[in-house]
């Protein structure tokens, strides 16, 4: 004969969620397809994580809830210990409350008076029974509540994890009473997080997980099942605070490094003041459509020696490990080496190394440019500092005057063509951060990283006075010659020389792409030479931040012309708003004309804006565009007949280069799917 029977019971709650003043309702199944039988005289224990459905189960047995689906059958009188002191009026004394609530709790009217006496005796509150319950402690409350619920003489007693509140004596008494009731053949259902109690008292146990019965059987078995799924990490060994800090610290003169593995932030200090802010020094790996940040990993710090500190970050899913080695090299400098170890092939999309500093610096300087942090244009809280040349080894940040702070220099030792530096100001909830980013350009064609160990960043952070930015270490440029005409391809930039005299300037021959309102030039891409012959080269450039690469085919077409073909290759969904092929000429060029007959001269003003529209002199359809200047041969940019969709543009550059631009542009109204197409086919002719 069963005291309690559950047959395919489902119970759901409609819960209101309020996020940012928006109210939404969600239906949550507290119990799903629960079938259970509790025999008479049996003590059943229910375990599970918070929210597994234990209290809902008890409420269904108590009759407080009706099942949405399925059947609940309970035979006999039910008393529950779910909320202690239910119905107690704080103004009334313990005795009065017992008397007032006896019948409501279910105590039989006939035996009420003697039961009340027994209840008061069992509670063992002494003279406090005659004091208003508002003066009771939690434990006293529990004694009285338990006493009242137990003397109801129920057939089924439900206990929802309230025994832990009482003191030793109270708990002891309660357990004794429960065992006594068990002897009398009463059925009991106990919910507890105290595994010892469950093991001691219960005949059978049930493990609930997300509303379903996951395990049912002997208490010992069910408990080990529960603890196995609870994934409790072993308690970390507590160590002396100061000792722990020193094991996570590296000092190099005024520069100090502290690896904060509690907050998972790598911090740098200038003597006593922290110079990092926000996220500190960290890396972001983009792979498998996710981006992995240090906060997702398990950190382990090891001090290898007085001058070396190692940090290992283990990313769980998929499994790969980042190992960071910090070593103090000389006064005020710490060398950083970052390695990545993968066990399985990993499709890497990007790898950024970032240093986020507090707003303590006033100016910045690179090998080519310098400036301040007055930026107004940005979106999504990020305000980029525009650099013409991003392929630089490092940046120097100069402290604000009068702060007594040292300058900071951040340098990457990598091959300059393979990493791009950028500098942003990040504004977040009232705080400003200076964010330095060194992005590794990942070749779009070589997508899968073989398993193994590889170095992906090596650099140095140093503090000092009057630091100078490191200079550009040029890559190997490639030469093409035809008579006195010479073409030099240098990592996304094509320079033209005639009889030793440079005809182009600045970025010279280059392409650029605008996506998401940001321009990215070919000089910022990673270039590989695919083919090099005497008069022809084919190079492929991989753009950072975009799934784009371009193939340039450059061939000497004679002593006066250079044939150029540009093919756009898209590797993923992206909206390339504008694509351009441009020729930048020195400001000596004063006049221009087109094959359609338009002509004009270049103004002597150069804009300081991001978009150089104010100094656009002409745009339209033309087969070729010409520019001429004193002492220089005519420079003609020609497009092929098949590329009529290209629009010609004649304009000045901005004030950084103070040069002239002749371009062909293609606008794309919508996102292009992955694929390849020919962007430009034409030539650059050098006239008489």
């Amino acid at each position, binding site marked *: 004969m069963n005291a309690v029977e559950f047959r395919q019971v489902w119970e759901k*709650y*409609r819960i209101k969620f309020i996020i940012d003043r928006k109210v939404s309702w969600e239906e949550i199944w507290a119990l799903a397809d629960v079938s259970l039988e509790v025999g008479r005289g049996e003590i059943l224990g229910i375990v599970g994580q918070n929210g597994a459905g234990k209290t809902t189960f008890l*409420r269904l047995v*108590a*009759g*407080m*809830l*009706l099942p*949405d689906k399925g059947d609940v059958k309970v035979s006999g*009188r*039910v008393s*529950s210990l*779910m*909320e202690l*002191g*239910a*119905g107690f*009026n704080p*103004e*009334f004394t313990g005795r009065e409350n017992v008397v*007032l*609530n*006896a*019948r*409501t*709790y*279910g105590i039989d*009217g006939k035996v009420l008076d003697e039961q009340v006496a027994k209840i008061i005796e069992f509670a063992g509150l002494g003279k406090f029974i005659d004091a208003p319950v508002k003066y009771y402690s939690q434990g006293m409350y529990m004694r009285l509540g338990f006493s009242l*619920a137990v003397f109801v003489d129920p057939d089924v007693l439900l206990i929802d994890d309230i025994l832990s509140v009482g003191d030793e004596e109270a708990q002891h008494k309660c357990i004794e009473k429960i065992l006594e009731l068990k002897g009398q053949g009463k059925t009991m259902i106990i919910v507890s997080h105290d595994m010892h109690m469950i093991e001691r008292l219960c005949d059978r146990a049930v493990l609930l997980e997300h509303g379903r019965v996951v395990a049912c059987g002997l208490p010992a078995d069910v408990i080990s099942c529960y603890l196995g799924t609870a994934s409790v990490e072993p308690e970390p060994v507590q160590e002396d605070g100061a000792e722990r800090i020193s094991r996570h610290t590296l000092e190099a003169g005024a520069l100090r490094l502290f690896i904060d593995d509690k907050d998972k932030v790598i911090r740098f200090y200038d003597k006593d003041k922290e110079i990092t802010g926000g996220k500190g020094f960290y890396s972001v790996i983009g792979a498998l459509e996710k981006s992995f940040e240090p906060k997702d990993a398990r950190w382990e710090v090891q001090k290898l020696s007085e001058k070396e500190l190692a940090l290992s970050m283990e990313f769980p899913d998929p499994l790969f490990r980042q190992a960071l080695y910090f070593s103090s090299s000389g006064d005020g400098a710490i060398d950083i080496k970052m390695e990545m170890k993968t066990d399985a092939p990993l499709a890497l999309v990007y790898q950024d190394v970032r240093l986020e500093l507090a707003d303590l610096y006033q100016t910045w300087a690179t090998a080519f440019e310098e400036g301040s942090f007055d930026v107004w244009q940005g979106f999504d809280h990020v305000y980029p500092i525009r650099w013409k040349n991003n392929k630089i080894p490092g940046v120097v940040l100069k402290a604000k005057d009068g702060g007594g702070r040292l300058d900071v220099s951040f340098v990457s030792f990598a091959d300059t063509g393979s990493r791009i530096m950028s500098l942003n100001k990040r504004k977040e909830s009232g705080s400003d951060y200076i964010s330095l980013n060194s992005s590794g350009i990942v070749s779009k064609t070589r997508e899968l990283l073989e398993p193994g160990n590889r170095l992906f960043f090596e650099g140095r952070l140093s503090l000092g006075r009057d630091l100078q930015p490191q200079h550009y270490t040029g890559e190997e440029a490639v030469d093409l010659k035809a008579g006195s005409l010479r073409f030099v391809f240098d990592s996304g930039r094509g320079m033209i020389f005639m009889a030793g005299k440079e005809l182009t300037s600045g970025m010279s021959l280059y392409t650029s792409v605008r996506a998401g309102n940001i321009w990215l030039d070919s000089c910022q891409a990673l270039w590989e030479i695919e083919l090099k012959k005497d008069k022809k080269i084919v190079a492929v450039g991989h753009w950072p931040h975009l799934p784009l690469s371009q193939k340039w085919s450059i061939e000497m077409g004679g002593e006066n012309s250079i044939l150029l073909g540009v093919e756009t290759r898209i590797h993923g969904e992206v909206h390339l708003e504008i694509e351009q092929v441009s020729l930048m000429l020195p400001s000596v060029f004063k006049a221009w004309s087109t094959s359609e007959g338009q002509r004009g001269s270049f103004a002597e003003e150069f804009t300081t804006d991001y978009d150089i529209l104010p100094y656009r002199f002409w745009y339209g359809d033309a087969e070729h565009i010409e520019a001429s200047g004193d002492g220089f041969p005519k420079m003609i940019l020609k497009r092929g007949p098949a590329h009529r969709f290209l629009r010609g543009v004649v304009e000045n550059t901005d004030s950084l280069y103070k040069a002239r631009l002749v371009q062909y542009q293609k606008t794309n109204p919508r996102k292009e799917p992955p694929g390849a197409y020919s962007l430009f086919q034409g030539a650059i002719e050098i006239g008489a």
Partner: protein
Amino acid sequence: MAFSARIKKIYAYRAVLWEMSLKQLKGKYSGSMLGLWWAVIIPVILAFSINFIFTQVFKAQAENYAFFILAGMVPWAFFSGTLMGSAEAFFAQSSILKQGTFPREFVVISAVLADFISFCTGFLFLYPVFIFLEPAVIHLLPAFFCLALLYLMFVAGLSLLCSVANVFFRDTAHFLSIALMFWFWITPIFYSLETLGLPWRRLFFYNPLTYFILAFQSLLFKASLPSAAVSLTCLATGVFFLAAGYFVFLKFEPKLMKRI
């Protein structure tokens, strides 16, 4: 649950209902010195203050005006007090709901009963006053009991409706307090219907409370049985609201328990 089974359960737990009502009653006045006397004092003070305003300030002419008002005021106090009090009943008593296995409507019914006891106590002291004014009133005592019973049914039903509505829309309690203010004015407590012009008089006949108040005024003040129309309407209203309230309660009972 089948209706007859429910009735049986209510009967089986009747002691619990009584105990709950008593507990609520004690709880309401616990700690206060005047206790149950408030059930008498409040209507009396209200009646006399209205009387003062209308006879002295507005110079209204009515015989024994204060007692006329009183005849309607005590039932009104029961009506508004009970309704306001029971609106939050399910929330206020949520802990005891989790504890016991008694029929859940007891939570509201006990609140109503507790107020009904106050109501009866009030009349215990005021009835002699009416008898003093009009000796014939005493013969109408049986009718008074019947009316009180019907009135109880009406208020109980309405309380059930409001308290169930309040569980799903917490605003009901607030809305109720405003509605009651308005309701007071459209119930002929301190004016008699005869003094109202015809187009307005129709409005008052749509108010179910009007009929009860008229009946009370008849029995207590005019010492005559209320007209057949009024009596029958009282009967119908009482039965209708109790049935409606109970029906709504039963329909929403399962969902109700999850919201508390």
